[in-house]
Each structure stands twice: as structure tokens, then as C-alpha cells.
């Protein structure tokens, strides 16, 4: 009886694992298949002609894909710089100093996520058009930074809060000024969390679609927009290849974050 029950449990677990793996890897396999399908039409279950023609097309130096990959990365880097420039001081203030209305500040950074993004970005686009930064990299970077600040500020605040106060006091105690203490003790100890927050912002920017669509198009074309255009135009091969390219940094950075972001920092996010 017990043997049968444990056998049943084991087979149920493996069945669930298979389902989970299929849900995770099924769409990825489909993308990979589409990226090498030169001809694929009904009623065939698999591509009729395989080839790397579309890969060559995407990776041609003069192609749209390479240009928008460059734009995407450039925008993501600028976004990270702006977000960190704001979130390091803001995170320190929220994580370390006794601020009145601290919870309110934390929620302000959450606001951009709280409302339907289309509604927000239509209005942002109106204002940016007025300011003359619609369709510029600056406009897109500002939109991405506003979106990314919630991650960077919350994680930076948690990273600073996780630094033991005694470690700072020990530096002050043997002669370091407050500023010196910040740069030699607090910041290096909070750095892993801050780097992780930068990575989150980078990935968010790389993936961002709605804001770029309203603020950047048609002058600024990022990789997600290229993917959208290709998919709308029925070019599933280019869309699949673009999606796979977008996947690479995400996977790499997630591995990175797992190493950097310690449990005690994660436990303090939002607290």
C-alpha cells in the first residue's frame, strides 16, 4: 500500500515537472524553430525548409535589427545612469535616515506602476511633444527611468538598510567623517544590491514597449518595437530572432542577480 502510494506520488511529481518544463520551454522551442524556418505553412507540423537566411538578415551590419539593438542598449545604459544617480541618494535617505512620511515617498516611486500605462504614456507624449523631446532618445530615457525608479529606489533603500549601523559607527569612531564613511564603508557594502537594482533597470528598459511606442516612434526604434513591427508584418522569423536576442541579457543578468542580491537585502525590500 505504502509502496504504491509513494510510487503514485513520485509519478505525479514527475508528471507535473514535465508539464512545467513544457510550459517553460515549449514557447522557447517554438521561437527557436521559427527562427530557422525559411518556409513553413499549413498543414505541415514542422518547417518545410530550414535555413539561416533570416539570421543573416538580422545580423547584417546595415540591417534594422542591429541598429535598434544599438539604440536599445544605449537607451538602457543612459536609463541605468539616471536611475542610479537618483536612487543612490534617495535609497540612502529612505534606508538610513529617519525621514518623516517615509512610506509616502516609497509609494510615490510606485505610482507609475499603479495606473494603466497607456493612459499615462499618452499624456506623457503630449507633454514631451510640447517640450520638443518627443521622438528623441532623451524622451525615451526619461520614460524608462521613471518606470525603473521603483526598482532601483526600493532595492537601494533595502541595500542601505541592510548595512549594519555599527559598521558605520566603527568608521566614524576611529576618525572618518560622515562622507568618508559613506564612500568607504556604506556604499561598498550596499554595492551588490545597487548593482542588482541597476541590472533590473537595464532589463526593464531593454524590454519596455508601451512608453517607447508613444514617446519614441517613429524616430527611435528599440528592439521590442522592431519585434512588434516584424510580428505585425507577418515576419515571424525576424520576430522570433529578435525575441531570442532580447532573452540573452535577461538570462545572463538573472544569474548575476542571484549571486549578488543576498537574502537579507531581499528581506528588506519595501520594508
Amino acid at each position, binding site marked *: 500500500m505504502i509502496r504504491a502510494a509513494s510510487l503514485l506520488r513520485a509519478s505525479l511529481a514527475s508528471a507535473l515537472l514535465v508539464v512545467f518544463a513544457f510550459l517553460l520551454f515549449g514557447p522557447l522551442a517554438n521561437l527557436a524553430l521559427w527562427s530557422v524556418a525559411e518556409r513553413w505553412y499549413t498543414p505541415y507540423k514542422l518547417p518545410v525548409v530550414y535555413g539561416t537566411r533570416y539570421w543573416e538578415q538580422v545580423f547584417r551590419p546595415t540591417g534594422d535589427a542591429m541598429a535598434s539593438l544599438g539604440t536599445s542598449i544605449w537607451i538602457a545604459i543612459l536609463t541605468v545612469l539616471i536611475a542610479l544617480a537618483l536612487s543612490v541618494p534617495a535609497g540612502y535617505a529612505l534606508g538610513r535616515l529617519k525621514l518623516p512620511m517615509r512610506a509616502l515617498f516609497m509609494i510615490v516611486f510606485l505610482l507609475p506602476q499603479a495606473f494603466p500605462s497607456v493612459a499615462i504614456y499618452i499624456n506623457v507624449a503630449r507633454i514631451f511633444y510640447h517640450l520638443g523631446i518627443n521622438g528623441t532618445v532623451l524622451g525615451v530615457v526619461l520614460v524608462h527611468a521613471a518606470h525603473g525608479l521603483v526598482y532601483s529606489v526600493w532595492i537601494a533603500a533595502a541595500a542601505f538598510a541592510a548595512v*549594519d549601523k555599527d559598521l558605520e*559607527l566603527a568608521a*566614524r*569612531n*576611529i576618525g*572618518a567623517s560622515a562622507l568618508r564613511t559613506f564612500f568607504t564603508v556604506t556604499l561598498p557594502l550596499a554595492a551588490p544590491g545597487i548593482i542588482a537594482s541597476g541590472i533590473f533597470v537595464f532589463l526593464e528598459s531593454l524590454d519596455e514597449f508601451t512608453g517607447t511606442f508613444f514617446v519614441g516612434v517613429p524616430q527611435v526604434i528599440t528592439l521590442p518595437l522592431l519585434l512588434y513591427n516584424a510580428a505585425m508584418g507577418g515576419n515571424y522569423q525576424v520576430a522570433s530572432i529578435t525575441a531570442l536576442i532580447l532573452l540573452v541579457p535577461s538570462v545572463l543578468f538573472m544569474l548575476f542577480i542571484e549571486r549578488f542580491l543576498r537574502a537579507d537585502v531581499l528581506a528588506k525590500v519595501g520594508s
Partner: protein
Amino acid sequence: MQAETQTMSCAGAAIQVRDLRVAYGGTPVLHGVSLDFAPGTFTALLGSSGCGKTTLLRSLCGFVPVTSGAILVGNRDVAPLPPEKRGMAMVFQSYALWPHMTVLQNMGYGLRLRGKPKAEIVAKVAALLAMLGLTGYEERKVTALSGGQRQRVALGRALAIDPGILLLDEPLSNLDAKIRMTMRHEIRAIQQRLGVTAIHVTHDREEAMTMADRLVIMQAGRVAQVGSPEEVYDRPASAFVANFMGAENVLPLHVERTGAGTAITAGGAVVHLTNRDAPAHPTGEAVAYFRDDVASLDAPDADPRGDLLVPGLIVARSYPGGLYRYRVEAAGRQITVDDATRHEPGVAVSLRIPTERLHIFPAAEAALAA
């Protein structure tokens, strides 16, 4: 040794604390503490948790803002100064070593701040490590060290800047018992060798007694008694101090002046003392505090021979080693007595208590301390 004595030169500084008051968010924690610390002395601040001893230490080095009062170091009031300008070095209970730095970087941090050349920093850290028994540990990560090693590095980091004043905030309480014993002696020896003024916060009575020249017993944000370990242990100034220093047996008494001297009554027993033996006992209702080893057991009908002989009943017996430890019910109290002979629980005995070893306080004061 030659190199050590050349590089170490902590001249102890004097501290005078004058009517120091500290409050946390409106709640007063220190109610006007005044203390003098002579150069080169080792003082232990002793008290139960919440008595303000750590607050006092942290306000001395500037981690806690003071409400009023002065902290004079060499006739200069440092109370308004930030921590980095006070010339005091602290050893933390949590070690507070910087995990992103090596042993050398940790210990050399204060020297680098002072713009010392690299060679000098390396030489000084090496000398300190030799003194602390950690020769060759410069490049170790502090996270790879044991608790005792970490606390030595923390001590070395504090001493590296040649502080006039060394503050020790329960530095041994995170260490296991055996290492704690050796560190007590090491810290004391180093302090004496360097002549630094040390202030040590602890809740461990034995640690305070074995390390310090002078004890400061604190109670609820005030100084309860200041004195050498012998003074505080043998002549506690209040019921609280007596109790805190281990005189945990409590015996209610009645003290009366008679023509020839003093009569002490406890639980039906009376002892008459001449004025020479009992010069200053308070009269009226009083409470006596005494240690477990003061009383002994005797037969119910034994001859008092000048001692207080209180009738009682053995309630429980245990054997902690060497002696038997009894709980005896006498004068309406449970009293702990150590005695060499074996008796069975339930036996009627009398407690032989030498009155000269009792700490007697008026009952009203004892009620406040309890």
C-alpha cells in the same frame, strides 16, 4: 618586543563626566550621571540590561546625542563634537569589522585616514597582530576568522590609532566561555601595558570584577555605587547593589537599640550586639542581604555563640559539587545555603548566620530596590 614598544604609545586620557543626561525620544535614559575616569585606569560599567550603561558609553563616544551635561577630555568638552573628533576608540559587541576589507585594511583604516605612509601602516599592524597573537593574518578576510580572532582584530583596529581612551561595549559576550576567560586577561594585560584609559560595559559581574580597577554599578539611569571590586562586593551601598553583587538571600529583620548595644530579631531568633560590633545598623524594620556561602546549617537546639540562629525547614537539596546546596524555609522566606554535611529534605534545622557578614538596609529602601 622592541618594535612593539616603539610603535605603541597610548597615553591614557582623563575623562570627567558632569551631570550627563540622555533621552531617547523624550524618555530619559540617563538622569544626570557624574563620573571621573583617571588616566590609565580600567573601569567597568556594570548593571542589568536597560540600566543605561551602554547608553552612557555610546554618549561618551558620540553615537548618542546628550540632552545636557558635559564630557571633559583633558579639560575640553567633547559633548558637542561628532564621533570622529573625540579621540576614543570603541570595541563593539558585534565586532563591527568591515566584511569587504582584509584584516590589514580593517586595522589600518584609522591610520590611512590620518595620512600615514603605507610602510608605517603595515609595520604598525604587524606589531599589533604580534601582540594579539595573530601574526601573519594581514591578508585574511575577516569573515574567515573565528569569533575570538575577530574580536582581537577589532581590538587591534581600535588600538591602532593610539587612542587615549578605549571603550569596550560588552566585547566578550558573543564569545564562548573558554575564549572569554583568556580574552579577559589579554585585554586587561594590553590595557595595562599601553596605559590607555579603558571603560568596559558588561552585565557579567565576574568579568567586571576580574578585569577592572574600579566598578561603576548603574541602576535605572543613575550611578548606584562607585568603588573598587572589594568595596562594592564587601560593602554595598544599597540593597540594590548588594543584591546585584550576588547577595541574593533576603531575610527580614527587626533592629532595636538597647542600652548595651543593638538587638537583631529574625524569625524568632534574637542576637545582641555591642555597639562596637554593630555601629551603624539602621533601626526598626530592616532587610538583610547575604550570599549563599554566608549561612550554614546547625542543629535546631544549637548554641548561638553570638550568631543569629534562625529555625527553619529544609525544602530541597542539590549537589552542585563540593558542597550541598539547600533551600531552607526560614522566617517566611526561602533561603539558599551551602553546607558540607548531608541532610534530608523535611528536616528541621537552624540557620547559623554570622551577623557581621549581613548587608542590612532599612526595609523601605529594600522595597524600592526590589
